[in-house]
């Protein structure tokens, strides 16, 4: 009788286990995306920071004068980039991304290389889940960084489908004399 019960419930059990694994994979994807996105957000906070409360170096802030530790944040954005149109692909965001790419080591930017406007792979390896990639594309729009993530069903063995769009502000923009 017990065998009968088990044989009746086994398919459902296996299906639930499979669903559980899918949940784990989704959670891992969320975690990878969140971690990757945080690096962009952090760099957007310190780029062109002239005075601030973060323990960072000139090599990271990329300011024209030495970075000083202080209570209130003061940024020094390049005024020519400030004056770019709000939808420019050559504005503050592009400048930040270019500086970020030249960081070595990449403390505040994703270690995965990126080129503006192109999809690149980010390996998923978290909580025992691995073996496939999430794709990320970075675009510069004025003083905003548009970051898109996707996981197409055809690109992974588990047929997972995921997409996420995030917009990160360049903090230094608030110190621009003019913002068209």
């Amino acid at each position, binding site marked *: *009788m017990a065998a009968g019960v088990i044989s009746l419930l086994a398919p459902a059990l296996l299906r639930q286990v499979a669903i559980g694994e899918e*949940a784990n994979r989704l959670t891992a994807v969320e975690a990878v995306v969140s971690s990757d996105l945080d690096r962009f957000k952090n760099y957007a906070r310190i780029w062109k920071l002239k005075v601030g409360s973060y323990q960072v170096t000139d090599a990271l802030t990329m300011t024209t004068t030495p970075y000083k530790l202080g209570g209130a944040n003061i940024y020094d954005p390049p005024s020519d980039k400030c004056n770019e149109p709000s939808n420019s692909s050559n504005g503050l965001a592009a400048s930040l991304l270019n500086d970020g790419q030249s960081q070595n080591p990449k403390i505040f930017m994703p270690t995965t290389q990126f080129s503006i406007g192109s999809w690149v792979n980010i390996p998923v390896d978290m909580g025992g889940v691995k073996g496939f990639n999430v794709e990320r594309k970075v675009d510069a729009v004025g003083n905003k960084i548009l970051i898109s993530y996707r996981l197409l069903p055809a690109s992974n063995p588990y047929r997972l489908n995921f997409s996420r769009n995030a917009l990160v502000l360049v903090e230094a923009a*608030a110190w621009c*004399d003019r913002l068209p």
Partner: protein
Amino acid sequence: MTVGPGRFRIRRAGSPGAGSASEGLVVQAVLLMAMVTTIGILVVAARVAGSRQSAASATLNNEARQAAEYGFSETVAEMNRDSKSYLWVTKFSAWNTVTERNLIACGVASTNAPSSNPTPPIPGVGSNVAVPQSSDLSYEIKDYQAPITLGTDDCESGTFGNLIGGTGEITIVGTLNRGPGSITTYTLKRTVSVKRAAPIFSNPITAIPTSRGNFNAADSRFPIFPTAPSGTRYEITCEPNSATEIKCEEDDGLLPDQVFNSETGGVNFPYKTSDPSSGYWLPSCEKKDGVIRCPINSMRLKAGTNMMVKTSDAPVEIFLFDKLDIESGSKLSGEDWSRFRIFGDSPGTSCSSPVISINSSPITPATTPITYESNLQNAFLWLKTGELKLKSRTPALTSTPGLVGSVCQNNLAGDAISSNLPNRKFFEGLGGAYNFQGVFGALTPGDPPRIRFFYRGFGFSEQSISAPP
């Protein structure tokens, strides 16, 4: 044993149809195992299903939150644009109705006059805005609390909040809509710091020229040049005393010599000791309206002299009448440039006095990578008339916080380079010196202010968040 629908019965031992006692135990054991197995399976299944539901729910929630955050970034970026920055200090209820006349009356700048028509000034007010490339995600701006005023100085009958700036609060709802019955929303409420940005003059409304050479001290749009203290105008010469000290003397022997520390801390100009309450080395320095003002006829910093001006206790202003010589390898700097100001004050219209000579030889502090410091730094400089001489181009004033406000353009030394520091800094200096409102306010009551400000929002902190089921 018979098994009926939905229940079973175990006959008593000894009754007809009953088996042996051992058979009963086996049956009970089998039943117990089956129950335990079934319950275990159900528990595992429920946990797995719950995990799946939880992960799916978290993903939906994350997507709605991402839509709200997307909207937040988009909204802040839009409000920071010159044409819309007036929204930072405009009450949400007036966003659709504020007019150019309101802005002028309250000294708020906008490169595009807001329409008086009741139309949303930026996307997301009163309607959902789709997140690009995500057909099921959108956001809507639900509310904005402009920085508050604690007094009764509301300008234009409650149209604006605090015109100095402060803290604003934005409420945005992100929505994930996957059809009827599958709508997830996320409410994001964040406070944002709001500050005044670079000002523009309203007469006419144009940006200030970027070239310092275009500033004309006689321009009526500038504030009135400050009045110098009336006391003795000393002549000072300073030279290195040790690796960390300098010694200054009054050329005519009117004062005892004074030793100052070269860096912040200890005894710094203009104080006699490390205790500011001990008074000033120059007796004619006076503290008025919270600012220390010192009349000086001439000051010479001999080669290698590093003079630090203490501004942490109160802003310091030097009124210079004849000349300031900063010789090779010397440095004159304030602790905070917006609190150390040099006013060149000479009568008449000649451009020959006072003269500030800077023998620009690079000073290389122990920094990695090596950087150069200017011989004059952290100083706001405004010469009503006068001449600025730079002996070399390197390092130019452009690479330092040293600031030239207004000097006679025609008499610049050949190698002098116009400061390309942003106007913002120039006016921050003026603002620190005089308080913008006091200087640039209306000339006569009832007139609009002569200067108008852009605003910027920056930084944020999560006020409260919610994700209704």
